[in-house]
């Protein structure tokens, strides 16, 4: 793409190899921010198309339930297995297992892994769908009918994703917790009554869980749709966009998770 890189002197090439990714990242972030601003603009101003929102609620929510149940269920089993094994080895005391597990689930694992799964399933799906619409000129046709693509395509996904991310995260907590309880009971003989110990969980944990779910739910559709809207070329472009969507969404989840966890830690210390 760049003109004959081997003709450039060495220090130019070194600068270019640093600068190119930086510019690329900056462009991507700028594009995402613009789409996000437009999405907010149309969310507040445009008319709500409830049928489209319900369709997306179904698409994002109902069709992810089995996937989320499966993956988060396994996650609960894995975590309890590891934690229980360690606790047996060190203290032999499994009284706190359930309570601490629920707290950890709320603080990190449920919102983060649910969001990663949404990025995987929903993010890639959105990018693939919108990308295909771009290459088949459907997005141009929308614009010719005076329907703004962001208003028409992104806003319903944005609203539906926020709602469903919260709902699915709560669902994920339940599934993981129950799956963990099963393993704790069968592998370590912890009885359910001891395991379902809510004494550790406070408002702080619930709030941080829901905040994360909300933020991730708002981020994923914007990034995924942005990846879809900038597709050029045929099937190659669509594949590329889908990949970009998964990676960017997942990275955004990890970065935001770090930011919110850090803020949460600061808040917890102030309390």
């Amino acid at each position, binding site marked *: 793409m760049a003109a004959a890189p081997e003709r450039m002197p060495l220090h130019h090439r070194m600068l270019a190899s640093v600068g190119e990714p930086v510019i690329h990242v900056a462009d991507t972030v700028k594009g995402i921010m613009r789409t996000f601003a437009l999405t907010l603009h149309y969310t507040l101003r445009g008319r709500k198309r409830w049928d489209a929102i319900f369709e997306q609620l179904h698409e994002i929510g109902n069709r992810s339930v089995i996937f989320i149940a499966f993956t988060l269920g396994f996650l609960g089993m894995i975590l309890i297995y590891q934690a229980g094994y360690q606790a047996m080895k060190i203290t032999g005391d499994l009284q706190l297992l359930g309570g601490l597990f629920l707290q950890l689930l709320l603080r990190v694992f449920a919102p983060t892994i649910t969001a990663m799964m949404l990025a995987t399933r929903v993010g890639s799906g959105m990018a*693939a769908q919108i990308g295909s619409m771009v290459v088949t000129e459907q997005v141009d046709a929308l614009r010719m009918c005076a329907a703004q693509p962001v208003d028409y395509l992104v806003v319903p996904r944005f609203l539906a994703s926020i709602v469903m991310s919260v709902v699915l995260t709560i669902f994920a907590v339940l599934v993981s917790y129950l799956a963990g309880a099963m393993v704790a009971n069968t592998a370590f003989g912890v009885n359910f009554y001891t395991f379902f110990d809510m004494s550790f969980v406070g408002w702080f944990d619930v709030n941080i869980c829901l905040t994360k779910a909300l933020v991730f739910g708002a981020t994923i559709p914007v990034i995924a749709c942005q990846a879809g809207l900038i597709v050029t070329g045929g099937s*190659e472009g669509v594949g590329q966009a889908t990949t970009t969507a998964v990676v960017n969404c997942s990275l955004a989840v990890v970065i935001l998770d770090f930011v919110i966890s850090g803020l949460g830690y600061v808040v917890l210390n102030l309390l």
Partner: protein
Amino acid sequence: MASEIKPIWQRVLNNIGDRFMGWSFEVGGVSLLVWEIMRNTFPPKLDGEETWRNMYKVGVKSFPIVVVTALLVGAIMVIQSGMYIEQYGAYGLLGWGAGYSVFREVGPIMIGLMFSGRVGANNTAELGTMKVTDQIDALRALAIDPVRYLVMPRVFTMIVMMFLLVVVGDFVSLLGGAATSQYLLGVDMTLFAWSVITYVSLADFLHGLYKAVAFGFAIAVISCHFGLNTSGGAVGVGRSVNASVVGSAIAIFILDYLITYLDT
């Protein structure tokens, strides 16, 4: 599809049946591909040049995001452990809490998911595009076995690269953790390092590496399967990539559970 109206129970059964058939098809396809790969492994038939090119591409492509992910994952785990450590004043356990969880579970899972998103999805997109533009059929017409020429190098590459990336990721995440403990929690880095060295064992590290190899293999096979079974133009490629990352995520969690179960 059929427009005549059926009773609701019949539609529900139809739906379940369709799903089940769909899943069976994918599982069967993946199994067949694994069998083909096994046949090509003993004796090993590997196109050296193609493998080398793939390794370079995969490594260059996924290295930055794995480093970023690992740094942040280390930091997040330190923050989470920090919340408990603070409560009990057991600062010496901070490194253990973060190191143990990252090495055994969180590291491989997060790096695996990232790898699946970056490399697996890209692989499906690439093979899918080749499929819908009839390039795979062109290879067959030239009597070149697509499994041997396209799949084998990718499987080999992804296993090796996943292994290396988890090794790198583990150490980078410790760096991220150390920095966080110093600057956010105010726990001295040396104490963090001491805690990691004292309490985290080689077994924890190896446990993560077994997972890395298993995930690499699973991601490779699943992404190749969905790529090679793409149909329906650009729309089909998008759908394949979606299915591939979903399948990989499911495989990662199942394999993780199995390895955790067997190796503790």
